Every structure is written in C-alpha cells, then in structure tokens.
C-alpha cells in the first residue's frame, strides 16, 4: 500500500508559491528625496551665555544617564552647581516649551545634575600636552572658567587670587543661603584636580607684579571682577553703621559676623542690595528695607530674588533715593529720602529717575548699607600699557578678550562684561579661546564664527576642542513651529520648592531653596522637547513603512537609499526636528 508520496516540490508548481524577496525592487528610485539626521541647536542653548548643550543633557538625563548629562554641561561650564542656583536663566526665557504650556525649569535641572551627578575630572592632555603656561588673575567665575577651559586644552594654568579663598564674588558676594560654600568649593576642587594651581592671598600690584607674571607666563588673563563698592556720596556717609555692601557681604563670607541694628536701610536695587537686605534680616534686622530709585521693573536683581525679599518680610521702598544720613550722638538715626519719578531713558537705556520736588521724607534707621554699584580694582594693569575706561573697566579690543597689549587678555566684570555669573563664565571662556588662538596661531575671528551658537554671542568650547566631530549644526536654532508636539501631554512646570517656611528661613543661613525631588525632576525632564537633539527615541525607525531606516550605533540612524520612497513621514513626526528631507522630487 503506497503511502502519500507527495512532497512540497510536487505542490509548488500547482499554485503560486512566492519566495523571491521584494528587495529586488529598488523603490528608492521612486523619489530623490531622502532623510538626513542633522542635529540642531535648541533656543535655550543659543540664549545661554555659556552655550550649555542643554537639550543634549536633557536627552541623556531622560534615559537616566545623569553622569553623562552632567558631562555635557561640563563641556562648556565648570560651575553647574553655582549656575543651577544663581543663574538668571535666559535659557528659560527662550525655551520652546513656553509656547506649549510653561518653560522648563532648566536652572533646577542644572542644579540637579551638579548635585547628583558624578564628575570624571578631565585632566590635562597627556603626552602632547602643551608646554605653555598661562596666568589668570582673579578666581571669580570668569577666571575659573578661563582656567578650566585652558587646562582642558592642555595648558598649564596658575590663578593668582588676592583674597584668602578662591571664588571671587561667588565666595564673597553671594551669601550661603543662596549658594552654599560647600557646593562652590567642590566645583573649584574639580578645577584644581585638573592641575590648575590657585595661589591665594596674592594681590597683583602689591604682592606680585604684573610684569613678573607676564615674564613667567606666555599669556595672562585678567579677571579681577569689580569688588570696589561705589560710594553713596551723601552727607553723613562717613558715620559708622553706614557700610559698604560688598565689604559687608565679604565679612560675612569670611565668618566675621557684622552687627546690624534693628532698623536697616539698604540702598540699591541689584543682587548685592538684595543680598545685603536678606543678610541683614538674618542678622537680627527687624525692619529691613530696600531703597531703590527706580521701580520694580528696573531692578537689576533677579525677579525671584526680589520675590524672596518680600516673603522674608523686607520692605521694598521703590522710587525713592537717599539725600542725606541723619545722625544723633554720632550714630545713624535715620535717612532723608526723596520720592522719584521715571523720566525718559538715560544713557543706560533705562528710564531716568527724577526727584519729585518737595517729596522728601525721613525714615528712621540705625544702619545703612550702600549697594549702588561696583568698580574694578584694576590700576595695576596700567603699568603694562593697558588703559581703563571711564567706568574703571579694563579696555579691550572690540569683540574679543584681547587688550591692546599682546599677550594680555581681560574678561569678566572687571572688563565690562555683563554682570551676571553666566556672562562672567562666558567671558572667561572667550578669554581661554582667545589665548589658545593667540598661542596656536589661529584666527580667533574665524574660530569664534565657526563655533558660534545660533546668532551668538555664545560659542561652544567643546566644538572648538573637537571641530572634526561636526555632530550638530550650531547655527540652526529650532523654532517652536517646526516641532511635532502633537503627542506631548500638557504638564505643569515644577519649580524648586523652598526648604523651609520664610519665617524659619530668616533665622538661619541655610540654603533656602531645595533641589527638585527625583520624581518631580523626572517629570520635568520628560517635559523638555530636547529641541534639535536626536534622543534615539526610535520613532522614525519604527514608523517607516518601507523599512528604510536602520540603526547605526553611535551615529543614530541612517537611511537605506535603495528603498526609501521619500515620503517624509519620519521628518514630520520627529519630535525634535532632527530629520531634514533633502534631494529633488
């Protein structure tokens, strides 16, 4: 009895059996359009004076790679723990998310990275290390930043710091409750571990001469800051209990507790004034007021710090200017002020405050603190031929960190940079690049242009260090309209909460603001669009109906030109606007 002897070979000719792959049809020829993955720049990065690659850091953080995210920040900024607490966050002002619901708490994120991430300190480049030595005068944010970037580039750097500890205004001008010194010391410590030498207690012009320093170093970067407080120029100013704000804060930073009375008036509207007021409050001042000649909108201090002022029970006496200090028995008993009104803009571009005739009034106070502006102590540069301008700032050649004297560079508050920490750090970075170009025979203009971020003025030092990498189009900033936000859920922004109630806060110098909890931070990280950065979300890879996108390891994704029909679905769906469709029809 024969069994069924039919095999598949018998069956195949009977009905259509198709095994040939459709891969023989090169459907890529249907269209010349093909996608390219081109990472771009986020508007936050463009706005950041330091040029932090914020979107990329968020991208790493969204995958739990906190250390990597921190490393991305430290490609541009050596002081994320500082900036994450005190920066005026222009990034948030340009954040694309603000058009969707609310801007991301980018500053809180930077702080989170600095507090939670681990730093692998990049040392000097071994072997091919450059032999040149560079001197930096001043260890404030500009000086530290310059030293950091120069050390990364392989230079030997020595910082000369006049005060007992490094940090400049960060150490001596920002109180503990806003920037804990442990955080600052830790970040300065990382810079030291890179091989940067910091010599404290050396005031150039007194303990060391600029000429000697210039002899011993191939280039010098002067970042002396602006630590000399302007005088009030008022009658009665010479009395005790009339203090200069910078000195007041410096004493506090050095652990010397200064006595203040019960009623304190702080003259000025910038962060120094605000910090003096908040410090006075903590030292026992019961009636503390800030007297400022313009209105709230013109106060240079950060809005959130001004809000803290009110929360801590400090009175804002706006549109008021002091006329004279009143004394009794050789002690301050009050100040006479006059009401101001805002006139047309003055030289600074802000409305000029004009006194209102006949509106004088007297405020009883026992302590007056003046915080009406700072100038640099930079006389020592004159011996080298560098000039100081009308405001006492070190004069530089336009658009650069170089002075008129070859080999001598300047930056930070002392050279007239914008008086914010981030801008000082940016200035130091600019100085480092200028010096590197000077020593390496490069055209600094070309370099600046090449590494400029968006419209500028910030630039990427990382890009300067690794120009061949070409991984991001620094000039192309991603506008909100080009993002695909269809699937993004609305979510509230998480702000850093206060650590304690204001009534408790003023009893101590402990840090007022707390970091974001892991849960809230995670939520905030997921809110970030990561504009222009490929987060390897796989959406394009999964969406492609023609199986024409492949994974390319570190390079992300690549297109299979033989099969891609150029539909552009991937480009339109990409949440970060990374994909560009190119080629003809």
């Amino acid at each position, binding site marked *: *009895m*024969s*069994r*069924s002897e*039919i*095999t*598949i070979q018998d*069956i195949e*000719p*009977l*009905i*259509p*059996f*198709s*095994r040939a792959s459709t891969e023989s049809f090169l459907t890529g020829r249907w269209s010349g359009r093909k996608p390219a993955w081109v990472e771009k720049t986020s508007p936050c990065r463009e706005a950041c004076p330091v040029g932090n690659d914020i979107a990329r850091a968020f991208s790493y953080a969204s995958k739990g790679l906190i250390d990597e995210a921190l490393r991305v920040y430290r490609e541009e900024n050596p002081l994320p723990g500082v900036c994450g607490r005190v920066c005026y966050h222009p990034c948030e002002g340009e954040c694309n998310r603000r058009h969707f619901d609310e801007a991301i708490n980018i500053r809180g994120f930077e702080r989170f990275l600095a507090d939670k991430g681990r730093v692998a300190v990049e040392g000097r480049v071994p072997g091919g290390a450059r032999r040149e030595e560079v001197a930096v005068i001043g260890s404030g944010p500009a000086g530290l930043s310059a030293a950091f970037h120069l050390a990364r580039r392989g230079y030997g750097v020595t910082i000369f710091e006049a005060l007992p500890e490094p940090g400049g205004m960060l150490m001596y001008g920002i109180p503990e409750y806003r920037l804990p010194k442990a955080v600052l010391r830790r970040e300065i410590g990382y810079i030291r571990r890179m091989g940067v030498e910091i010599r404290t207690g050396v005031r150039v012009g007194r303990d060391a001469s600029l000429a000697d320093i210039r002899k011993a170093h191939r280039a010098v970067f002067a970042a002396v800051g602006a630590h000399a407080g302007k005088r009030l120029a008022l009658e009665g100013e010479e009395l005790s209990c009339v203090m200069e704000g910078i000195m007041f804060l410096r004493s506090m930073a050095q652990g010397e507790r200064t006595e203040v009375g019960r009623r304190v008036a702080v003259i000025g509207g910038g962060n120094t004034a605000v910090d003096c007021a908040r410090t006075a409050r903590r030292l026992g001042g019961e009636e503390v007021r800030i007297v400022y000649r313009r209105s709230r909108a013109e106060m240079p201090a950060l809005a959130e710090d001004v809000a803290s002022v009110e929360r801590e029970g400090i009175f804002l006496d706006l549109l008021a200017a002091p006329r004279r200090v009143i004394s009794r028995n050789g002690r301050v008993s009050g100040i006479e002020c006059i009401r101001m009104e805002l006139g047309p803009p003055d030289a600074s571009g802000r409305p000029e405050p004009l006194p209102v005739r006949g509106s004088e009034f007297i405020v009883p106070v026992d302590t007056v603190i003046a915080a009406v502006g700072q100038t640099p102590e930079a006389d020592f540069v004159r011996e080298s031929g560098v000039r100081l301008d009308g405001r006492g700032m070190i004069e530089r050649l336009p658009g650069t960190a170089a002075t008129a004297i070859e080999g001598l560079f300047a930056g930070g508050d002392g050279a007239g940079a914008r008086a914010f920490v981030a801008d000082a750090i940016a200035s130091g970075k600019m100085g480092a690049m200028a010096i590197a170009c000077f020593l390496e025979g490069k055209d600094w203009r070309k370099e600046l242009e090449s590494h400029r971020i968006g419209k500028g003025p910030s630039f990427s030092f990382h890009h300067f260090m690794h120009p061949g990498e070409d991984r991001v189009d620094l000039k192309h900033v991603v506008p909100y309209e080009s993002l695909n936000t269809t699937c993004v859920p609305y979510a509230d922004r998480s702000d850093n909460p206060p650590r304690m109630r204001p009534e408790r806060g003023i009893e101590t110098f402990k840090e007022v603001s707390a970091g974001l909890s892991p849960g809230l931070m995670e939520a905030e990280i997921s809110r970030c669009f990561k504009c222009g950065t490929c987060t390897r979300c796989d959406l394009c890879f999964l969406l492609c109906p023609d199986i024409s996108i492949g994974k390319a390891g570190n390079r992300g994704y690549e297109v299979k030109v033989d099969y891609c029909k150029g539909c552009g679905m991937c480009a339109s769906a990409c949440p970060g606007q990374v994909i560009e469709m190119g080629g003809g029809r």
Partner: protein
Amino acid sequence: MRQLLAGNYAVAEAVRLARVQLVAAYPITPQTPIYERLSDMENDGTLGGIMMRTESEHSAMAACISASLTGVRTFTATASQGLALMHEMLHFASGNRVPVVMCNVNRVVAVPWAFGSDQSDSLSQRDTGWLQFYCEDAQEALDTVIQAYRIAEQALLPVMVAIDGFFTSHFIEPIEIPDQASVDAFLPRFAIPTRFDIEDPAYVSNVVNPEQYMGYRQRSFADMEGTRPIIEKANEEYRELLGRGYGVIEAVHTDDAEIVLVTSGAMTSTARVAIEALRAGGVHAGLLKMKALRPFPTGEVQEVLKHVPRVAVLDRNISLGKEGIWCQELKAALYPLPRRPLITGYIAGICGADVSPDMIEQMVMRALGAREAEALPTWVRRGETW
C-alpha cells in the same frame, strides 16, 4: 459490521473511518443529521478531530481550505442554498489544489422554497473544478466518501460526493460498516506537506499575470484528466480490500439494448426495477448509471453507447435555456461518435416529485418510439400525459 443506518449517518461513519481531522460545517436541511452525528462523535471522542461550527457555509469551506493548506484532513457537508452560498469557495478550493472532501445532500435551490431532492444544486457547480461523484444509496455514499479522500489526496483536487436529499440521506438501509484497520490499509494518514512552512516561508496564492494564470489552469486541467487512472485504481483496491466497487459508470443490460436509460443518484434504484420489468416484457432496454460527473467518463460512456440506437436521459434538474444537465453532458460526450444514438431528454422528479417505475417504463417506451430528436426535453409528471 452490519447496521441499519440512514444515509447521513453512513456518511458520518465514513468521515470517522477516514480519520478526518477537522470538520467545519453549518446546518441545512437535509444535511443536519451528518453535522449532528459528527458533533456527537466529537463530543465522545470517537471523531478524533476538531469540529468548527461556522456561521455560514461560505465560512465553512473557507476554513476547510485553509486548514487543508496548513496540513490536515478536512470535511464539510451541505446542500442547496448552502452549496450555492459556497460557490466562490468551490472555485477557491479547486484553484488552491486542496484535497477537501464534501458531501452534498442534493436539495432543490430556492426560489420557490421547497425541500425535496433535486440535483440542480450540485450539477450547477460542475464548472468549479471539483471532482463530482453521485451515489445511489447509503452504502455507496459511505464507500465513496472514503475513496474520495484517497483520490483527492493523490490528485490534490477537491471531491464532492452527492447523495439524494431524503431518499438517501434519511432512508434507513442495512449498511456494511468497514473496520478501521481495513480503511487504514486503504487510506493512509494525511501526509501532505504543509504549505505554511516556518523554516522555508512562502507567500501562497498571490497575484499572477494572465499568462501565468493560464498556465495554472492548464495544469489543473491536465491534473483533472490525470485523476482517471487514480479513480480507477482506488476503486479496484477498495474492491479488493473491502469487497465493493462502483466504477465511474455502471452498465446494466446494455450489450443488446435497443434503448438505454441514463440515470444517476437514488432514482437509479427505481430505474433498475423498471428496466427489469421492461425486459421481462420483451423490450431490449438497458440502464446506464452515471456515477462520475467530473471528470466526465467520456470514454466509458462512448464505449457503452456506441452501438446503441436510442438513449433516454432522466434528469432530476433543469438548466433554463437549454435542457437537463446530464443530457447536455451526454450529448457532448457522444458527439464524436460516427453513429450517434437518438437521444431523448426527460425532466422528472424535480424537487423530489415522485417518479415511479411505471413512469420510467413509459419514458423508455416513448423514447423507443421516437422518430426524431426533440429540440426540448419532456417534463414528466405523475398523472399527466406527455
């Protein structure tokens, strides 16, 4: 083992003995006892396979086809409207070259609505590419279903086994039920390779171009022709192993016949009686029972009828605009003969209307006396002259 069984139950026994693995069906009178008996067998484990209770006959055939492609032995049964509903799937089964076996319990097709035996349902599907066998009684039904699997699985073409509604399906006869071992010896287990092979995946039955389509049809045509020796061999072996064989036709008293009556299905039993009576009365009448419709047994029919002067064809069906279908088929088969019999067509028993032996005798006598061929068939009714 001998048992008194109705035709439907005989078919169910055949399905069990053939070790069918999957049955997909939908109830319709007069098929339902097959469906119900198989359900009982599934329930008590004697079937050994899976029953799919589909929501229509069209889906039943669809499931049989895909299950067969996957690699199991399948069965379905239907009638009348159900078969008509399955029409698309009949083409589908044949085109896919699957060895599905189906029992069609012949019943008239609506409209008008009625439920009697009539071969219009299966005959009108003769062009769908199935082999078709018509059974005279319950025993033949059982034997033919078993043989059908052997034939189908060698030919890779589907096979329809037709039995008369009520006359065969519901009438009880003494049936010889073969033992499993004998059937196993005749019919091996299903061993056709799956067409869905994970290791060597293929896309089965995708679209072809006109030239390719024609090629596949021609191949099927050739393979349908190739079933003739397969059918013959199956019939011989079945006869050897189980003692019964039916051939593709059966010729009775045809050697000296002046007239041969051609019938199929249950009516053949009545015709046998009529022919004996006629012969006893001196008429040289013979009988040709048609078992196979597809492939049409042209050679066998020509051989039997080539010297017969007259033929009467009894059709329990009608194709409007022409004549009875068996008559059409027969005329086409006899056309090449140098001398063709004079053929008279009769339409009788539509919807199971009664056809008695004397009516058949009358038909034969009238055909014997016919002087010329008639353009149209004659409709035969009890109590009427025609």
